[in-house]
């Protein structure tokens, strides 16, 4: 009796395993046909766009909000008549915080759904995973998050900051505050490692000391040792490039160790309003973040964005830099398509140079040569209410320089 039941359960498990194996094989075969470019399907009254974000896993804490703001932009554009008289039809996929999944879903969006453009990705690891897919298929990705620079794909528009619009200004700010030594803490993947290379080059050229550098795997929640090392280093400030909810564990540990924003401030580049809320203000109050946009950024465009977002998703939902960059990316794509008069990827790219948009963060301009956008850099402080208030800004939009060509100290990097 027990034996028979056991077998049935085992048979069920085997079927599951077999199904998973088949699914894996299925996705491989599509990689085989490398036809150059799949034209977007714009035959109907709608144009499909792909949304590719992690809705599960360690990155979901951040990426869900990006998905929400892309949806908001699409709704607004549709309500105003759409793009080239076509309504936008979003096709959503879950990257599941897993980089091969991102590549697989990107392929699916381009080849099966035949979308005109894809909006999404957060971590650089996921962007690096999908980059060859977009280049092979000559399809467009709009990437809305600050990143480590040193990249310029013809099929990606980077609407978040590159290093000279976020990390370098952040370092300038610390230097102006008199910091002479830094400790670097980051997640163990391409963005933090490259960012820290840049930070070390900057530090060397500017007489700052880097006292230590530590990486934790994405999703890691054990920061006892790293915090000990940071504490005993006696650095003036910590530059934090941790991503996802490792930040939760890190800041809990940081506070437990008796470190505060006053004794050793942490400058974070991946913690925005949404993360502040979920990490808990009790751990973050007074700490610094470097971004291009805060919910508190003044201006009519931002008031409208914040009000629309809260009306749609709830009054307690904050807006943040990557959300704003994602929201802006949809409008920029619309402007490019309208200037080009077609959804054709190559024509859209040609039309991109000089496109401007009165964004919530202020005026942004697309730089056609690098496919990045000019934006204003800001440094802010986390307040007791969980919002971030600006303590410094660059005064005017900074021209993107992904390879840091205009910075002599960065010569050896690319």
């Amino acid at each position, binding site marked *: 009796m027990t034996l028979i039941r056991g077998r049935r359960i085992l048979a069920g*498990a085997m079927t599951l395993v077999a199904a998973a194996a088949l699914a894996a094989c299925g996705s491989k075969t599509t990689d085989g046909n490398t036809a150059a470019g799949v034209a977007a399907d714009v035959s109907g009254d709608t144009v499909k766009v792909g949304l590719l974000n992690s809705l599960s896993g360690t990155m*979901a804490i951040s990426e869900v909000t990006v998905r929400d703001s892309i949806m908001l932009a699409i709704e607004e554009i549709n309500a105003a008549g759409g793009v080239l008289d076509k309504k936008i039809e979003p096709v959503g996929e879950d990257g599941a915080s897993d980089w091969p999944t991102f590549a697989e879903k990107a392929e699916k969006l381009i080849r099966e759904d035949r979308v005109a453009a894809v909006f999404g990705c957060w971590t650089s690891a996921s962007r690096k995973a999908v980059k060859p897919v977009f280049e092979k298929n000559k399809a467009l990705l709009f990437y809305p998050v600050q990143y480590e620079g040193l990249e310029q794909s013809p099929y990606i528009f980077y609407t978040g900051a590159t290093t000279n619009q976020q990390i370098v200004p952040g370092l300038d700010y610390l230097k102006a505050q008199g910091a002479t030594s830094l400790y670097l803490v980051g997640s*163990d993947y391409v963005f933090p490692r490259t960012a820290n290379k840049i930070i070390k080059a900057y530090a060397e050229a500017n007489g700052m000391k880097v006292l230590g550098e530590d*990486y934790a795997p994405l999703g*890691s*929640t*054990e920061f006892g*040792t790293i915090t*000990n090392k940071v504490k005993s280093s006696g650095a003036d400030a910590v530059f934090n490039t941790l991503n996802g909810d490792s930040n939760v564990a890190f800041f809990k540990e940081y506070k437990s160790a008796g470190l505060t924003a006053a004794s050793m401030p942490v400058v974070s580049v991946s913690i925005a309003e949404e993360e502040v809320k979920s990490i808990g203000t009790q751990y973050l109050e007074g700490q610094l973040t470097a971004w291009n946009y805060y919910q508190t950024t003044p201006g009519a465009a931002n008031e409208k964005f914040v009000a629309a977002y809260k009306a749609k998703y709830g009054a307690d939902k904050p807006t943040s830099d990557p959300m704003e960059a994602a929201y802006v990316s949809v409008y920029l794509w619309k402007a490019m398509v309208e200037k080009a008069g077609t959804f054709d990827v190559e024509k859209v790219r040609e039309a991109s140079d000089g496109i401007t948009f009165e964004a919530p963060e202020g005026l942004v301009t697309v730089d056609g040569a690098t496919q990045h956008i000019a934006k204003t850099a800001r440094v802010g402080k986390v307040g007791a209410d969980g919002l971030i208030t600006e303590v410094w800004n660059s005064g005017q939009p900074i021209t993107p320089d992904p390879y840091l060509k205009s910075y002599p100290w960065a010569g050896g990097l690319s």
Partner: protein
Amino acid sequence: MTVLIGQLFTGVSIGAVLLLIALGLALTFGQMGVINMAHGEFIMAGAYTTYVLQQVITAAGWSLLIALPVAFVVAGAMGVLLEILLIRRLYARPLDTLLVTWGVSLILQQLARDIFGSPNVQTRAPELLTGNIGLPGGITVANNRLFILALAGSAVVALTVALRVTPLGRRIRAVVQNRDLAAVSGIATTRVDRMTFFIGSGLAGIAGVALTLLGPIGPTMGTNLIIDAFLVVVVGGIGQLKGTVIVAFALGVLQATGEYLTTLSVAKVMVFIAIVAFLQWRPQGLFTLRTRSLA
């Protein structure tokens, strides 16, 4: 010196976490021989229990204290349910148990995702546990880690006492040492199995409560822990609690030392190499229980 002591404390506290997540497994795997891959999900259940209680009882201190017994019962009940529905039917087939419980762990993860959503959630720690105690010489000891250490310590003591002196403990040991003879002597082995599984799974729930003090709560948190838990039990030796305790702290200190001298990833590799080398030398683990059972 300050750093060394700080690091030693970090190592011990990593050990305490390892001990908490492995203790329940030491009972179900070590004593009963059931390979329960869903043990990590019982830890997750404990963590989510804390989260849910905090939504109801907003005072963080009280909700944490109440979460301890509640999580024990919730995770324990899940364990008993699993035992009755599946594991009981597979006692003679350890490999099938492994597959089935792994399937159960996937189902539980998806269930957590459906109930609580995919993004990880956090609990607020009581203010008392976010601070630290300063010792002379600039050494600070984090309160939350101290709490986890105390919790792990009390769990070990309680479990040891329960196994040594209570009638149930005697029955559990009898069943472990010789199931058939215990059955012949009039011990209801199925009921003893169920109680053992209840306690073992309940301890996983307690571990889940403790983990909310350190990091986020998510549907996949269990998968990251189950490997560590099995390592501790296997290296410690099957059927013995003291092996689990010693190995948990040894691995914790080794991890912290390695991490301090090198990096986190290298330290993990060092720990794994040490474990492989150790098991080459003593495949049976640190301590073994001599039994008269034929299995």
